């Protein structure tokens, strides 16, 4: 297979959507937090936690969807922790976020190790299966490329559209956007920016955890430490790339996944001519490039990372 022929294979396009799913959830989560004015660097840890609890729920006999819901709840809980520290207390969002990541991931590993004895190969579960959509899935090429995904992938795309609608068209979305631009303006109009931020962070963190959960319930079928592999940080970069817009976030995640899926296949084409690590670096390098490209153009929420304290003089 030649380097360019890869683009003609339906499996590449199918993989793009699969690889993009956790990124879509993660980016969306980070975006919701940031639109309200709070950077959530807890994402990497929250995704790790989501991956583990979803897997554990299913492994203990729970339903796959129950797994996702439990992940979302745990993510929301850690979001609440991040929110309490950064919003009412106004602590540094950078350091708190990293602290949440360290805490969530170490707690995840601890609980995982506590629940299961050490073994050479991690135990597995039965993951989400591709959802056959009658008619669409049978179309040659397109069916395999677009309509043979697992249900959470479709959910991710729907979540993106829903978030875009809520932010742009509803009073709640306006309140979130306004809080990210000027919390004082929100307070002067009788809403509570602190509650709005807390709500946004909890929601965003739940999305992040579901993104992590996708890894164990659809992509892989087991949990192992460090499996999130910096995807959370990539999502933070994608938010900037998307200029804080849900639609562009979807696009960014897909583009990113395309590169990732392509490099995976390219590895097999060039075999050992180039060390495999070079290919693995591609996604990370890309996210830095994305940040550089968008550095001048991005429309940053004006109050991002500015703590708001009521009655502060």
């Amino acid at each position, binding site marked *: 297979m030649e380097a360019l022929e890869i683009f003609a294979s339906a499996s590449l396009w199918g993989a793009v959507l699969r690889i993009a799913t956790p990124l879509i959830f993660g980016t969306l989560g980070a975006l919701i937090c940031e639109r309200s004015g709070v950077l959530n660097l807890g994402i990497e840890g929250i995704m790790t936690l989501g991956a583990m609890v979803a897997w554990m729920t299913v492994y203990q006999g729970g339903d796959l969807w129950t797994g996702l819901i439990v992940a979302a709840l745990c993510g929301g809980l850690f979001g609440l922790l991040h929110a309490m520290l950064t919003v009412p207390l106004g602590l540094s969002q950078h350091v708190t976020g990293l602290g*949440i990541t360290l805490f969530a991931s170490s707690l995840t590993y601890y609980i995982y190790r506590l629940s299961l004895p050490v073994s050479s190969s991690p135990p597995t579960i039965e993951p989400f299966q591709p959802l056959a959509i009658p008619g669409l899935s049978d179309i040659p090429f397109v069916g395999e490329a677009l309509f043979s995904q697992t249900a959470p992938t479709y959910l991710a795309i729907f979540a993106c559209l829903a978030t875009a609608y809520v932010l742009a068209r509803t009073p709640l979305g306006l309140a979130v956007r306004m809080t990210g631009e000027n919390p004082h303006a929100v307070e002067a109009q009788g809403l509570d920016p602190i509650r709005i931020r807390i709500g946004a962070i909890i929601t965003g963190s739940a999305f992040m955890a579901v993104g992590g959960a996708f890894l164990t319930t659809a992509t892989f079928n087991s949990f192992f430490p460090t499996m999130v592999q910096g995807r959370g940080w990539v999502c933070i970069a994608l938010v900037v790339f998307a200029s804080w817009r849900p639609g562009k976030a979807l696009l960014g995640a897909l583009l990113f996944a395309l590169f990732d899926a392509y490099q995976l296949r390219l590895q097999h084409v060039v075999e050992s001519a180039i*060390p495999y690590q070079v290919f693995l*670096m591609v996604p990370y390098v890309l996210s830095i490039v994305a940040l550089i490209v968008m550095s001048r153009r991005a429309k940053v929420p004006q109050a991002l990372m500015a703590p708001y304290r009521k*009655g502060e003089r």
Partner: protein
Amino acid sequence: MRLERRDQSSLALIVAAPVAAIIVSLTLSGGLIALAGANPFDAYFEMVKGAFGSRLSISETLTRTTPLVLTGLAAAVAFRAKLWNIGGEGQLYLGALVAAWLGHNIASVVPAPLAILVILLAGMVAGALLLLGPVLLRIRLGVDEVVTTLILNFIVLLFVSMMIEGPMKDPLAFGWPQSVSVDRDVLLPKLLARSRLHIGLLIAVAAAVLIWFVQTRTVFGLETKAAGLNRNAASFAGIALGKTMLGVACISGSLAGLAGAIEVTGLKGYVTLDLSPGYGYSGIVVAMLAGLNPLGVVITALFVAIVFVGADSMSRALGVPSFIADVIVSISLLTMLVCLLFTTYRVRR
């Protein structure tokens, strides 16, 4: 209920903050230990015994302290200037890789004491250069350095993996991904016979004192302090923010790079992918626990080392997963943040 700034934060509060943070963190973690079926008091006793119980364990704890002091300083220096260098882990690995390469190749050409100096300096330069990229991006283009330094950690680890499976692979390592070893002549002298403790500890402590001196007694220290606290006022006073930030980046990156170079020349002799159990990230906790004070870093690095070394032996004795060490350390970071807040704020109705 709201927070109000204190007019003055007393010394007692400043000292009490980390102590309170650690106590709260140990209490919370105690619950998790109990979850594993062990008595928390026994567990903490085992930890202390594991960290201090014998000559060997003391030397192990101090050996662990060494890189933590350096990565802690790297974070403390950077954070004080509001430079969010989260790339300590990557800088450490790059410093280690450069040290291993030089240690393998120059020992035969350069006399040993000089070679050691060259190796350590090269490790520092490597770390500094790695941080320079993200910092220049921030200064020139306003790219947030948190994400770039974080992502660079992954890139560097892949690079290290590539090198130790490729050009720098040790042919005698039975196929394990492991770099070539440094020459015996360039290994750091031991501090304590029949132990792994090496003079890196002294270098690290000296670095802490030096950084403290620079921060409190020099023009550069005063200028970076101003730049970190209030960018506008600093630039109004004529302080070149970009230059100051680059200076801070060089110091911060080279400290993390030095940590890597010292781990290789003092302890391991070669680079593997588990050279560091996250020293770069733990350094952030060390720095925060110390309230970014360079002398405090030495103490908090010791605390973190005790937790890690102690948890290993406690884990063996009581069957509590050794991940508890990371849990304790990360909780203490979060509780420390809260405690630090209350040294400058108080709650009012």
